[in-house]
């Protein structure tokens, strides 16, 4: 059971959007894929400053890789150039080397960016919920095989229903 400040105050599905779903990432390196994952947020005008956010994410990787193994990478960070907590979900068929401890390239990516302060404080709980989601092999397989955003949505809604 999550503790007080690790409780997500919205449904997980509320953070996902088809416009922020990249089923076929093209990038081949870590910095390129982070930039590619930012594209939907740039296109929608969600970010106040692309360079500041990109710089922050690259520096976060210097602190320690956000590749958590089993083919999952969750680049994340806070920035004043991000007005609201955002998630972008992407997939790479070929995989991208992400300096994960198990050495496996990342094929599923969840980019999470947030402002330094948020009213509802969902940033860390959201990170936690996504880590929990991808720890399950069946969920990872379903995310890999999803042929549409609807199938991704279905999985996430099941996770929400199961609490």
């Amino acid at each position, binding site marked *: 059971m999550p503790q007080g400040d690790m409780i997500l105050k919205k449904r997980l599905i509320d953070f996902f959007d088809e416009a922020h779903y990249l089923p076929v990432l093209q990038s081949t390196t870590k910095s390129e894929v982070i930039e590619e994952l930012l594209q939907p947020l740039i296109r929608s005008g969600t970010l*106040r400053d692309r360079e500041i956010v990109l710089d922050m994410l690259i520096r976060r990787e210097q*602190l320690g*890789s*956000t590749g*958590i193994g089993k083919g999952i990478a969750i680049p994340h*960070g806070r920035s*004043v150039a991000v007005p609201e907590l955002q998630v972008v979900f992407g997939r790479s068929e070929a995989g991208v080397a992400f300096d994960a401890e198990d050495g496996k390239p990342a094929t599923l990516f969840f980019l999470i960016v947030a402002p330094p302060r948020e009213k509802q404080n969902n940033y*860390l709980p959201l*990170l936690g919920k996504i880590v929990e989601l991808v720890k399950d092999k069946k969920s990872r397989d379903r995310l890999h095989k999803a042929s549409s955003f609807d199938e991704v949505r279905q999985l996430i809604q099941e996770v929400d229903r199961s609490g």
Partner: protein
Amino acid sequence: MIQEVTDPKSKGQEEGLGFDVGGLERLREARKKLEAQVDRRSLSLYERLRSKYGRAVVPFQGKICLGCFMTVPTATLSRWNEGGDLLVCENCGRILYLL
């Protein structure tokens, strides 16, 4: 980011989720390199503001300082546009940058 990682609570939370935050020295080195590019007066101002507010540099948008949410006077902005020094909020003193 250095502040977040050196805070035991937030560091613990990230590590608890399985994220590596061990590269603090790399971040500190990057900070040192950046510091060397800043003049002493500005750096000293930055350090004073940082110890007072935590966040010394804040954005301004639509003439509002997003540190204290007061309006930055037009005259201040004009002086800065004409090639003035650092732009500083007259109310809270924080260093401003345009978003």
